[in-house]
């Protein structure tokens, strides 16, 4: 792992000065759209594994005058732009490990009637539903990132993928900031355009000879070919946008906070240049048992998962500190989005930026009362600046359904939702 040759800060200072272009100016190819058109909506989801320390996460007071406990305190500068929700639940579906399911099904919690992947109730996840709706015009339909640069993929995809194209079909994460950069700003390497026709023909020949199960696998390949085709076309158009606004990162920074913030910077950059409108970031895989260094927080590496199962009170303090560390990175994201002017408001006003976990209390693997914070107004569709705790069984998917509505997807339900969470929607969409 190498740090970047140029400090991230310096690069961003440069960025602020030279590339403060709003989305329309930066994306001349999109100038076919009328200059008066409203800026697009964007969504970003940040996942934290293993749950949180609840007593330092959830505010005591509900409503607009809510308090920010220690873990959420880094959000004080943007308190008016966030909504803290409590009392939202997921239902564990027996047959898989508790940790594997809480991450892989966070944005995709299918009812038993929907297709499954083995025991996992994974179906098309919320971000991919949004990508289908928002991503058709952008160079990349969506970005899937993880801040786990560990070389060994010791866990299966269920621990590190929150983004799913469909049952059992994980979007797969990019962990190296450099690769993300190349994906955003590089010309598609190897000139894939010229091979597209030939390989599509090959797939068509094959398809006729395959049974249903094999066809589904081949269709994954064909989807990838089509995604490339679209990316090639859009990248050609976007070439006019000129040089990338920040230097290419050398790799993942050694400093954990810098690593996460660099990935978040790339998301913000992709949003402001309208190269993609949907992104997910897994801070760490679920149940990750290799100790991590949290720079500036602890002197020694910490095993986040093991801490959640340790009864010692000092472990609780440590979890709370890790929570606060993660929230600080999220606050950075929200502040960055807010710093970008767009249309008559800010980029944050066009976004839903969500942070949460698929487990509330890590020790008992509790799926009830999940921590989730939403920032941004999604183009005026989302209400912000309050804390609400729901009573009784309220599926997390109800919130996801409301987000779909906020983004103009008028689905009657999503996953195991029972009704939209009206509180988060403004009267414009209710």
């Amino acid at each position, binding site marked *: 792992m190498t740090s970047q040759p140029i400090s991230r800060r310096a690069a961003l200072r440069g960025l602020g000065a030279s590339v403060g272009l709003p989305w329309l100016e930066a994306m001349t190819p999109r100038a076919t759209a009328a200059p008066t058109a409203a800026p697009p909506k964007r969504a970003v989801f940040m996942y934290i594994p293993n749950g949180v320390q609840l007593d330092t996460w959830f505010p005591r007071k509900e409503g607009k005058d809510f308090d920010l406990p220690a873990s959420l305190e880094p959000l004080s500068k943007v308190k008016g732009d966030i909504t803290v929700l409590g009392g939202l639940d997921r239902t564990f579906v027996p047959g*898989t*490990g*508790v940790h594997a399911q809480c991450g892989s099904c966070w944005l995709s919690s299918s009812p038993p009637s929907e297709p499954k992947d083995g025991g996992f109730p994974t179906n098309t996840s919320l971000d991919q539903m949004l990508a289908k709706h928002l991503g058709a015009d952008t160079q990349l*339909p969506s970005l899937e990132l993880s801040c786990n640069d*560990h*070389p*060994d*993929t*010791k866990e*299966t*995809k269920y621990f590190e993928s929150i983004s799913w*194209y469909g049952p*059992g*079909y*994980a*979007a*797969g994460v*990019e962990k190296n900031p450099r690769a993300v950069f190349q*994906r955003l700003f590089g010309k*598609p*390497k*190897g*000139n*894939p355009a*010229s*091979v597209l*026709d*030939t*390989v599509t*023909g*090959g*797939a068509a*020949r*094959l398809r*006729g*000879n*395959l*049974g*249903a*199960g*094999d066809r589904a*696998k*081949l269709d*994954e*390949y064909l*989807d*990838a*070919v089509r*995604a*490339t085709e679209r*990316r090639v076309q859009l990248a050609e158009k976007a070439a006019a946008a000129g040089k990338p606004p920040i230097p290419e990162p050398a790799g993942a920074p050694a400093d954990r906070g810098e690593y996460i913030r660099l990935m978040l910077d790339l998301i913000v950059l992709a949003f402001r240049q309208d190269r993609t409108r949907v992104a997910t970031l897994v801070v760490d895989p679920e149940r990750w048992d*290799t*100790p991590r260094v949290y720079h500036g927080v602890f002197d020694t590496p910490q095993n986040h998962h*093991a801490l959640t*199962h*340790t*009864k010692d009170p000092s472990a609780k303090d440590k979890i709370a500190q890790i929570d606060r560390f993660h929230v600080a990175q999220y606050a950075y994201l929200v502040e960055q989005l807010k710093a970008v002017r767009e249309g008559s408001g800010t980029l944050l006003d066009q976004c839903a930026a969500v942070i949460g976990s698929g487990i509330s209390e890590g*020790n*008992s*693997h509790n799926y009830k009362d999940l921590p989730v914070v939403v920032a941004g107004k999604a183009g005026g569709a989302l209400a912000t600046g309050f804390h609400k705790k729901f009573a009784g069984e309220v599926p997390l998917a109800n919130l996801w359904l409301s987000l779909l509505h906020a983004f103009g997807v008028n689905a009657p339900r999503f996953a195991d939702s029972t009704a939209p969470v009206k509180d988060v929607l403004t009267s414009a969409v209710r």
Partner: protein
Amino acid sequence: MFIRSVLGTLALSASPLPSGAADPDFVRDVVPTLKAHCYGCHGNTGKPKGGLNLAKFATPAEAARAGAVWADVLASVRAGDMPPDGKPKLTAAEKQTLLAWLDATLTAPGLDGVRDPGKSTLRRLTRTEYNNTVRDLLGLSTDVFMFPERFPYKKPYFDPASGVVPEKLNVGAIEYGGKVPALLKQAGIPGDARAEHGFTNRGDVQNFGPLQFEKYVEVADQLLSAPNLAATAPKLGPVLGASGRPAVKAALVPFLTRALRRPPTAAVVEAYLEAYDAAKKQGADDRSAVRETLRAVLSSPEFLFLVEPGESRAGPVAKLDGYEVAARLSYFLWASTPDDELLAAAKAGHLSDPAGVEKQARRMRKDRRVRELSETFAVQWLRLNELWAAQPDKSFKSFYGGPQGKGTLHADLMAEALLLFETVMIEDRSIMDFVAADYGYVNPRLAAHYGLTKEFEPAFAAAGADVKLGLTGQELQKAQTAANATWVRVKWPDPSRGGFLTCGAVLTVTSLPQRTSPVKRGAWVLESVFNRPPPEPTVAVEPLDSKPASTTGKTVRQKLEAHRKDPNCSGCHAKIDPPGFALEAFDPVGRLRTTDGKLPIDARGTLPDGRTFDGPAAFKATILADKPAFAKAFAGHLLSYAQGRKLEHFDEPALNEIAAAAAQDGYRFSRFVTGVVTSYPFRHTRTTPPESAK
């Protein structure tokens, strides 16, 4: 699913059930027993336990269609898990009749009277397979790119044709992450996640993401832009050197035959020539235009996926054709593409009968490419791919050497394990050596780590690998590095060591940084040795702290005993923990120990069938007391890997056949390879969906 759902591992026997009596009748002989012992919980109760209702099967035909259900029942009954404690036991006669019926039902042909060979879901080449395939297709002398599955060894000793692994050898270790020879230094493709309890080559768990297609195109482009390509990739020469459409076409046919693993039809050749034609039309020269065609071939689904027949062939079962068998053979034994001889054998029809397949397999086992059976199959089988991530506590000083402890023991531990597998494979020994061998390989550093320097001193001296006294500082370090490159075959001084269970690599992978984990070790034994992985825990419990006994005043075992009393846990842990207890004789980095902190080690245990043992040697003896069971478990791992699919209940007969044939020949390694490649499921495929999917 049969393989994973069963807990009753230790008592499982592969030996056939008592024969002689007439096959029992379901309604007359079986239903009364089920009614008396099973329906109470697993009947029409509205909410049958575990969702299992056995009363819904009224006729033999209905029952026979639910093979997976009965496979579970068979394993639970055979192991004595069912009926559970506290319920009346089956009488000996009831048990024998029930087992006989289950065995007959599970081995009966399942597809309208035809034996079910299973169906491998369309498999994409794994990263290793892609690398090897391109390497061999182009005739490269190095890997295509650097990838983590390629271990940092040069393996000059590895000579399968010789039939021996030298007594003294050099593994040619490279620092992990250090530079290994590769054509493209920066390129790569995404890695593959392993299947739960399985291998990375399983089509059903592989995915193809949008990133991935671009990566293949990019690698193909870089490959074909490499300097001196004709010299670096000699097998590409004829295609690259051709000029004019007829010559290009003539050169392309043999290339496509090798790339697509079967002779291309005229339409396929024309389809790939279209890329050439398009480039020519735009004014490209012959060589650039040919490159366009090659790029398309290397990015095409026909190349990236191992295609086997589907519904287009008359069903329900199709015999694989020679080219498909050739591909199965080469990806099984070499993790690479068929060579010219295999393709010739396919063309000549030699792969349509078991003898022809066996002949090729025998040849292929003597080829250096068979190293993948060790580095890919064995590594994933034994879960050693996780070894590099193990971070034992810094207090285990012998694990860390050199400046800042950067010279870790990882590569040495890995080499020890690989050398055991390779010795059994190359010297065609009994696979029982995997459980308990009286020999092994060590270098001076590993010998010191195990505390066996004195015992092995003569062996190292004879090999010229002893470090002369009187050296200090850099001189000493240099001499040590040189000495550590030498590995010698040694006889373990006591039977505690020997076999994979007691390899430092395995013992480290299954430990936490500061302490051992009998649970992880036990689960490893159930999965790797018995091929019966335990299920995920169903209840959340606080895990034991990760501290060593020296700071907690209790051994791990003492802490675990409290857990085991919980009735929610004891069912599974009665099977998981005993093997782990036996291995408590080893510390978290694989060194034998008699105490943990100041507390004595208790390595005694009782198996679910009542047998007791004390220590690792005695535990290994309990495994070897039922050789057929281990043979069948190993055959299961091999057959699953060879086909790239999860095994199902209908694979039981094949496993029994492979294990029985191997038993006739001292369980020699080659018998398992032969058994797999000549087996019915390896040479056939199902062409219709299974009954359960309809």
